[in-house]
């Protein structure tokens, strides 16, 4: 359903990705793992149309997304939860959600659905986003992306720096979204979190996808983790 084919890209003159490919199906959680600086976030930015491709294609339901103006990519149904959350910090919770809803012309129904998923946000609708706790900010970033009713959900290290209880809540939402039929790309550092929810895992190293495996191939296989993550 969603396919990244041989993507080469980078920042200006500096190339970061040297041919990354992966395929994600509906109702599937596809995890990306790799060391810091491997190019995971760069791949998601490229999907969002924010970095021009030097080579390669990005396809959603057989239609090309690469080459589209960046603001049209989310309108095709790509929801993005960037690394570090990147909320509109001086806007309220409600306004951040409104930005998500406006992207694909979603209305009150989607708003209610999203607020049901994150009840804590509905208690803080008029609070300025920058003043939320880290966990609440992550919820809002996720809620904002879900407001698109996306076909594909990109999550870049959503549990970074969060308390265990928050991590669990985010995890549950991701699993729920999988059940809704979303194709999910999840960048995650913590191997235990990955093993419990991933359908497939792709290891990225030096801007290339090295190996795509099942969680069962990784469990108890210390060698592969040492190789790609250095743990």
């Amino acid at each position, binding site marked *: 359903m969603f396919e990244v084919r041989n993507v080469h890209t980078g920042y200006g003159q500096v190339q970061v990705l040297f041919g990354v490919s992966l395929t994600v199906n509906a109702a599937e959680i596809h995890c990306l793992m790799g060391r810091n600086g491997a190019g995971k976030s760069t791949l998601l930015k490229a999907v969002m*149309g*924010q970095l021009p491709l030097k080579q390669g294609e990005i396809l959603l339901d057989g239609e090309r997304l690469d080459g589209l*103006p960046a603001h049209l990519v*989310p309108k095709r149904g790509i929801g993005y939860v*960037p690394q570090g959350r990147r909320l509109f910090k*001086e*806007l309220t919770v409600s306004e951040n959600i*409104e*930005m998500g809803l406006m*992207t694909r012309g979603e209305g009150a129904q989607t708003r209610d659905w999203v607020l049901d998923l994150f009840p804590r946000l509905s208690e803080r609708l008029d609070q300025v986003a920058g003043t939320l706790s880290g966990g609440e900010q992550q919820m809002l970033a996720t809620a904002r992306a879900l407001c698109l009713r996306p076909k594909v959900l990109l999550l870049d290290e959503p549990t970074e720096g969060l308390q265990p209880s928050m991590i669990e809540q985010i995890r549950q939402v991701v699993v729920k979204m999988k059940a809704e039929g979303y194709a999910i790309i999840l960048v995650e550092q913590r191997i235990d979190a990955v093993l419990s929810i991933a359908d497939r895992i792709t290891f990225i190293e030096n801007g290339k996808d090295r190996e795509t495996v099942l969680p069962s191939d990784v469990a108890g296989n210390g060698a592969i983790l040492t190789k790609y993550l250095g743990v």
Partner: protein
Amino acid sequence: MDFGPHLMLASLEGAVISAILVLTAMGLSIVFGVMRVVNVAHGEFFMLGAVFAWAVTTMISGHAALGFVAALIIVPVLVGAIAAGVDQLILKRIDYDVDRTIVATIGVLYIVQQSTLMLYGPEARPVEPPFNLRLALPWFEFGENGFQMIWPWGLSVTTYKLFVIGAAIVVLGALWLVLTRTKIGLVMRATQQDRDMAQAFGVPVGQVYSLVFGLGAGLAALGAVLVVPIQQAHYLMGGDPLLLAFIVVIIGGLGSLPGTVIAALLIGMSDGIISVFFSPTLAKIIATFLVAMVLVFRPQGLMGRVAA
């Protein structure tokens, strides 16, 4: 005239200056806030507003108010459209690079100024105010007969000047409503905070930039339409508003709209009062000195925030 009535007169002058200044500075502030563009050509959009106002009012015959109302509606839109064109043709192509936009807008400044000189000429031309009744103002005194109201000779204001003050308040209120209560305002604020994320949520940032640049120029033009019945239209009239608007934006805090309003009041009032009691040159000197002080002791401005 006694000091009291004289001060009141000076304050009214200051309020009129503040009214025009707040519109001009607001335009500069919004453009800087959302686009991070320092628009050196801002004063020329002001000047274009005045010149176009002259052109529109000359073209439309009949009562002076007819032409003036037409100018009030047509001119800001026209100047805004020209500015949006400048954004698309020039600023977009240099990718809003900070240094290059300064140089590019200096270029725009001279192109607009010299084109106006060629097409409109070096004359200063007046625009007739739509109405201009002189209202005598009362003053209160505590004299031998107790508290009494007097009508000092020379203490008066024209209805047009009161209209300018009222119009500026209305426009500011409307602008505030647009920015805080409408979808396009929300989109502008989101773009201001994180351009890439705005794009990731479907905002056509390029179009928003053109709109904001047009809005900024349109506000300056609106200020100019209001000012031409008081001050004549001339191709070099953009210099002072540019300088004062920069002073206001720096004192208020870069990109802070409430700060811009407060600083415009401060600078406008002091400009009016000092000009009446001493000289306009002294007023400019003090304003410039204030900027230097603000830059030394509070570089983020009155209401600006320190970058996180």
